[in-house]
């Protein structure tokens, strides 16, 4: 709002920001918006993860930002290249909702599975999850401030929330 640089992260996309720039991704449903932050050097990263595991990928040119198990390592590499250190990083997550209440099939539980998969990857790298706002049945738009390390979450039903 105060002339901060806005870095947009699309669906199945990831990016990093520093120097007070703000990372933003819109319309998270069952997708998970994951942010990593190194509070010492103020480098932040965000991934809009769509699917839990790349093991199901059938695409010829894989988009590694799409899957939890490939997006997180890539994001770490990009952040390390920008000066961040893994041992200082902390994570926040939002999204992973179940937009429609239909029983049964696995696709319909994709939101919770995305959250589980992200959590597992973060555990593997020993990155603590500082806060999360996941689940529910509603969409979210998120913004992460690379200066303050605050994640702002907007939703239709619940308005604005900061974690």
């Amino acid at each position, binding site marked *: 709002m105060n002339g901060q640089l806005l870095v947009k992260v699309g669906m199945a996309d990831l990016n990093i920001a520093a120097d007070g720039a703000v990372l933003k991704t819109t319309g998270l449903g069952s997708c998970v918006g994951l942010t990593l932050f190194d509070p010492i050097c103020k480098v932040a990263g965000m991934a809009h993860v769509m699917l839990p595991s790349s093991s199901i990928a059938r695409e010829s040119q894989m*988009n590694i930002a799409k899957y939890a198990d490939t997006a997180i390592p890539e994001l770490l590499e990009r952040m390390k290249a920008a000066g961040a250190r893994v041992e200082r990083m902390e994570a926040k997550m939002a999204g992973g909702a179940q937009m429609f209440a*239909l029983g049964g099939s696995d696709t319909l539980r994709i939101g919770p599975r995305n959250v589980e998969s992200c959590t597992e990857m973060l555990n593997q790298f020993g990155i603590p999850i500082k806060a999360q706002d996941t689940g529910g049945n509603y*969409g979210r738009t998120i913004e992460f401030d690379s200066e303050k390390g605050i994640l702002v979450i907007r939703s239709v039903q619940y308005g604005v929330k900061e974690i």
Partner: protein
Amino acid sequence: MSLFDSFKAFELDVLKEVGNIGAGNAATALSKLLDKPVDMGVPKVSLLPFEEVAERVGGSEQIVLAVFLRVEGEAPGNMFFILGEEAAKRMLNQLMSMNHVEDEGYSELELSALCEIGNILAGSYLSSLADFTQLSMVPSVPSIALDMAGAILSYGLMQYGEMGDSAMLIETTFIEDYQSLEGHFFLIPDPDSFNKIFKALGVDLG
């Protein structure tokens, strides 16, 4: 995604006809419900990057009312009937004589009524399509959401996620003449359903 890259103009025309037949029937149903003439736009068939799908209904953060049905059977897919907030209010007003009160959200009864309208329209879309293709297409119980378009539509794109970053969708728009009540139908067949649809219609993909 190579399958879709190789779709020729003729195959796209076939899919447009699929949209035309389905939505034509749904438009008739809507016209009967409203007791007013309902116009239909020319169906659009496009392979859209995920990012752009929500742009079709006003952008990722646009608040829309969506009825979602999962289509099961021989040619599975996802189906959305999407209304803007204005259109949803008009529809309630015209069909149920319900006057929507500003800023009060939607009551359970209103949502249920809109969900049922979506169900009727989607049902007539699918049953005409099933007749046309002789494939079984059975809609699930409908569910409704009032939320950001991006969050809603991405739900229907999951089957494409593992194949690439774009989805094939068949889109039709309704317009009810005088009050410009506009609604969108999205049929997003699962990637594997296209071959079945083409085969059923005698299109040789060779």
